[in-house]
C-alpha cells in the first residue's frame, strides 16, 4: 500500500538525524575502542589482563566494594526518608523534598570539593573531632571521603525513585492487613517492603552503576584513590597506554550497562543518571 | 447550512484484514443515499468502527475494495483530502487551543479567509448552542460541552459527509438522552449524509433513517428501525434490538404447539424458532388465552411491569405489561399471543 510506504519513509526521515549521530559518534567509536583494546602490547589478552593482573583486579574489587557499600547505605537512608516524605503530609514537606533533590545534577567535581570542605584538612569534621577528641580526622582524600561523596549524589537519585514507588502503594492492601490484625511494624514488613522491592532493586542498580562509573569526585579528591575510572584515566593520560585504558573502559562499561539494563527491566524508564 | 455539497457513499467489496491476520470486516457492499443517516449498530468487535474508518479514509480497504463518494472514487484519497467531518469517541479536541480555535481549525487549515472563517465559526457555535463558550479552554469544559465543541468543529468546514464514532458513549445516561435529541435535530436540519456508529440500540432507533446491524465483520441486516425491530432477519438481530422471546414448537393439524400453549399456524415447522416481543403478550381473561405461564419475577419499572415467565420451555419468556395490577411470584397466568406478531428466524 503506497500510503504505508510513504508513512514509513517519513518516519525513517524523522529518526535519521539522531540515528546518524549515533552511528558515527557512538557505535563506530565503541567498535574502534574494542579493537584498540586488543591492539596494544598484550594484544587481545589485554581483556584477560583486566581480570588477572593484580592491580586491575584490586581496583575492580575496590570499586565494586565501594559501589555496593554506597548502594546499601543509600537505599536504607533513602528508603526510610523517601517513604516518610511520601506518606506524611506536614508543613515544609515540599521544601524538604526540593532540598533533597536539588543536588541531583551537581557534577562530581563540585561534590568532591564539598567533601574537601567537610573532611579535608581544614574541614568541618576535623574541626569537630579536634574540638572533642583532640585529633583531626581528615578522611577526604581516601576511600572514606569517596564514600561520603558517592552517598551525596546517590541519595537524591534514589529518593526520587522511592518516592515515586511509594506514591503508587495501594492503601487498600494495608487496610486489609490491618483489618486482619497486623500492627504497624508487620504492615511495613509484610505489605510495604515487598511492594517497594522492585523500586528498591531498580534504584539500587542505578546507584551501583553510577558509583561504578563516577569519576569527577575521585579526580577532585586526587591521586591515591584506586578506583577503576581513575585507573583508566591514569593509564590513558599518564602512561599513554591506550590499549589498556580501552580494555578497562570496555569492561567497566559492560558492568554498568548490565546493571542499568537490569534496573530498566524492573521499572521501565525512571530517574536520571549523571556523572 | 447549505446541503448542496452532501454526497452519497458507496462501499464496493470492502474488506479489512489487519497485519496480524484478523479479519475485521468481510467483503461488504453498501450504498448510503445522499442526505441519509445510517447507523452502524453492533457489539464491540463487530466491525462497525472499522467500516467507519474505511469511509473516513483513516484506513484503506483490502485489495479490490473501493469507496465512492458520489461519482468520485476516493479509495486512494487519504482523510486529509476527503473533506469529511468526524467526531471521535474521545472527541480529540486540541488542548492547546480554545473552543473557538478548535472550531476554526478545519477552516484555517484550508486557508479560508478570516472574515468567512469567523462567520462560519460563529454559525457552528450557534448551532450547537455554545456561543458563550467560545473563549474557554478545553480542560474547563464538561463532557457534554466537549461533545458539542467536537460537533461544531466537524461541521464548520461544511464537509460532504459526517462521521460519528460512538460520540455519546462517554457520557452519563441523562446527558446521553438530551444530546441524542439535539443530535437528531442537528442531523435533520443539516440534511448531511451521516454515518453514526454505536452499540446503543436506543440511539440507533432514534437517529437512523436506516440501521445496519453488524455481527463479526458482516452486516447482519440493514433496514429502517421498524423493519429491524418487527422483522429481524435472524436471531442475532432479533436479540440485539429490543428483547427477544424465542419459542420452538411443532406443527400439528393447523396449530403450532409449544410449551405453554398453541397458536393457529399455516406454514411448516419453523426450525430456528419463532420470535415475539415482550409487548406482544397480553394478559387474557382466564379461559380465553392461548399461552399459560408461571410468574418467576415481576420488576416494577414505573410505567410498566417486566414479567419474567416460565412456560415450561427451556428459556424464560419476558412480558411487558402496562396494566396496573400486582403480581405474585409463582402465580399462574393466561396470556394471548397474536400469531401475526410471530417472526420466523433463520440462522
Amino acid at each position, binding site marked *: 500500500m503506497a500510503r504505508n510506504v510513504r508513512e514509513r519513509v*517519513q518516519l525513517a526521515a*524523522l529518526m535519521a538525524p*539522531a540515528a546518524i*549521530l*549515533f552511528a558515527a559518534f*557512538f*557505535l563506530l*567509536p565503541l567498535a574502534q575502542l574494542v579493537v584498540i583494546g586488543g591492539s596494544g602490547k598484550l594484544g587481545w589478552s589485554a581483556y584477560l589482563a583486566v581480570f588477572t593482573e593484580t592491580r586491575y583486579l584490586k581496583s575492580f574489587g575496590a570499586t565494586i566494594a565501594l559501589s555496593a557499600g554506597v548502594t546499601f547505605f543509600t537505599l536504607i537512608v533513602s528508603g*526510610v*526518608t523517601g517513604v*516518610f516524605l511520601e*506518606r*506524611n*503530609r506536614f508543613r515544609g514537606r515540599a521544601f*524538604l523534598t526540593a*532540598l533533597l533533590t*536539588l543536588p*541531583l*545534577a551537581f*557534577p562530581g*567535581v563540585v561534590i*568532591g*570539593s564539598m567533601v574537601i*570542605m*567537610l573532611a579535608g584538612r581544614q574541614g568541618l569534621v576535623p574541626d569537630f573531632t579536634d574540638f572533642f577528641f583532640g585529633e583531626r580526622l581528615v578522611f577526604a582524600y581516601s576511600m572514606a571521603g569517596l564514600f561520603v561523596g558517592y552517598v*551525596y549524589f546517590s541519595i537524591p537519585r534514589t529518593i526520587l525513585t522511592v518516592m515515586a514507588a511509594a506514591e503508587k*502503594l*495501594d*492503601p487498600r492492601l494495608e*487496610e486489609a492487613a490491618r483489618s486482619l490484625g497486623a500492627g504497624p511494624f508487620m504492615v511495613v514488613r509484610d505489605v510495604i517492603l515487598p511492594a517497594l522491592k522492585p523500586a528498591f532493586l531498580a534504584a539500587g542498580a542505578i546507584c551501583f*552503576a553510577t558509583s561504578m*562509573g*563516577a*569519576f*569527577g569526585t575521585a*579526580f577532585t579528591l586526587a591521586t591515591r584513590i584506586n578506583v577503576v575510572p581513575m585507573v583508566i584515566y591514569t593509564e*590513558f593520560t599518564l602512561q599513554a597506554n591506550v590499549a589498556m585504558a*580501552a580494555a578497562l*573502559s570496555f569492561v567497566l*562499561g559492560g558492568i*554498568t*550497562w548490565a546493571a*542499568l539494563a537490569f534496573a530498566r527491566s524492573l521499572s521501565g524508564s525512571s530517574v*536520571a543518571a*549523571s*556523572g | 447550512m447549505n446541503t448542496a455539497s452532501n454526497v452519497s457513499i458507496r462501499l464496493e467489496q470492502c474488506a479489512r484484514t489487519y497485519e496480524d491476520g484478523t479479519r475485521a470486516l468481510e467483503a461488504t457492499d453498501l450504498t448510503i443515499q445522499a442526505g441519509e443517516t445510517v447507523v452502524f449498530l453492533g457489539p464491540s468487535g463487530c466491525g462497525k468502527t472499522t467500516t467507519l474508518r474505511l469511509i473516513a479514509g483513516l484506513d484503506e480497504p483490502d485489495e479490490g475494495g473501493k469507496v465512492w463518494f458520489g461519482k468520485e472514487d476516493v479509495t486512494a484519497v487519504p482523510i*486529509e483530502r476527503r473533506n469529511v467531518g*468526524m467526531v*471521535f469517541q474521545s*472527541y*480529540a479536541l*486540541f*488542548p*492547546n487551543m480554545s473552543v473557538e480555535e478548535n472550531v476554526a*481549525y478545519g477552516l484555517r*487549515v*484550508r486557508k479560508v479567509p478570516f472574515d468567512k472563517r469567523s462567520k462560519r465559526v460563529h454559525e457552528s457555535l450557534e448551532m450547537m448552542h455554545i456561543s458563550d463558550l467560545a473563549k474557554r479552554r478545553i480542560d474547563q469544559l464538561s463532557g457534554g460541552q466537549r461533545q458539542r465543541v467536537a460537533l461544531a*468543529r*466537524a461541521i464548520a*468546514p461544511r464537509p460532504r459527509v459526517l462521521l460519528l464514532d460512538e460520540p455519546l458513549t462517554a457520557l452519563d445516561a441523562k446527558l446521553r438522552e438530551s444530546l441524542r435529541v439535539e443530535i437528531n435535530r442537528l442531523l435533520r436540519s443539516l440534511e448531511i449524509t451521516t454515518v453514526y456508529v454505536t452499540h446503543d440500540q436506543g440511539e440507533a432507533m432514534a437517529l437512523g433513517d436506516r440501521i445496519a446491524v453488524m455481527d463479526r465483520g458482516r452486516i447482519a441486516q440493514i433496514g429502517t428501525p421498524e423493519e429491524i425491530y418487527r422483522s429481524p432477519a435472524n436471531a442475532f438481530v432479533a436479540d440485539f434490538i429490543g428483547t427477544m422471546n424465542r419459542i420452538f414448537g411443532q406443527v400439528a393439524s393447523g396449530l403450532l404447539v409449544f410449551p405453554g400453549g398453541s397458536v393457529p399456524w399455516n406454514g411448516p415447522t419453523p426450525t430456528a424458532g419463532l420470535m415475539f416481543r415482550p409487548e406482544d403478550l397480553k394478559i387474557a381473561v382466564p379461559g380465553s388465552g392461548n399461552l399459560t405461564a408461571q410468574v418467576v419475577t415481576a420488576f416494577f419499572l414505573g410505567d410498566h411491569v417486566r414479567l419474567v415467565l416460565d412456560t415450561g420451555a427451556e428459556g424464560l419468556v419476558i412480558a411487558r405489561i402496562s396494566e396496573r395490577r400486582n403480581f405474585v411470584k409463582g402465580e399462574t397466568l393466561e396470556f394471548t399471543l397474536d400469531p401475526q406478531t410471530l417472526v420466523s428466524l433463520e440462522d
Partner: protein
Amino acid sequence: MQASIKQSRRAPFFWMQLALTLTVCAFLILPVLMSMTAGVTLNYMTGVSGGITTRWVEKVLTDYRGPILLSLQLAIACLACTLLLGIPAAYVLAKHQNAFTRAIEELLVMPVAVPGIATALALIVTYGSSGSFRTSWLFILVGHVLFTLPFMVRSVLAVMSSIDLKTLEEGARSLGANFTQRFFGIILPNCSSGIIAGSLMVVTLSLGEFNMTLLLHTPLTQTLPVGLADTYASLRLEVGSAYTLVFFVIIVPLLIAMQWASNAISRRERI
C-alpha cells in the same frame, strides 16, 4: 495514593523519621552553603568573621572567563541539537512500539549507561587524529549531545505517551491538516511541558558535564567544570570555592526551574 495509616503526629516513630530526614537534608545542603560562603571569605581559616570579599569571585570571573563562556555556549548548542534530533525521534517512538523502536530506545540510553570516560576515549581513538575537529569545541559538543539526548527524548516521549497522540492526529487529519501543520500546530504545543523539562535537564547536565569533557578538552577548549577541578588542584581553597559559587549561581536557578516544571507535569497528569 495516600496511605491511610494515620501515624499520630506525636508518635515517636514520626519524630525519629523526621529527625533522620532533617539530618539528611542538612548533610546535603550544609556543604553547599559552606562552599558558597567560603567563596566570599577573605580567608577560609578565619571564616566569615575574618571579612567578606569579592576578590576571589572577581579573580575567577577574569581568569576563567573563557571556560565559563564556553560552557554556556556548549549548553545552548547542546540544547539546540537535542531539540532538533530528539523531538522527532521521540515522535517516532511514541507512534510505534515494536521490537525495532525498543532497540532504538536501548541504543539511545547507552551513552548514559557507559561511563563518560569510556565514551570520551572511544571518540578520541576514532577521531583523535582529525586535527581541527579534535581541537574544536564541536568535539566536546558531540559528547554532550550523546549524553543528554536520551534525557530530552525520554522527557518528550513521556508527555507524548500521556496524551492520546493518535486520536489527536486523526482529528487534525480529519479537518484537512497535513503532516507539517499537525506537527507544529498540534503536536509540539501539546508537548511543551515535556520539551521545557527536557530542555532544562539538557542545559543543566551540559553545564555540569565533567567525565567526558575532561578527556575531550584541550587547553583552548576548557569548560567550567574542568576549570573548577583545576582550581581545586592548584589554587587556594577560596578561589575554588568562589568558582563553585559562580557555578551554583548559574545552576541552582535552573535546578529549581526543573523541579517546578516536573511538578507542573505530574500535576497535569493527575487531572
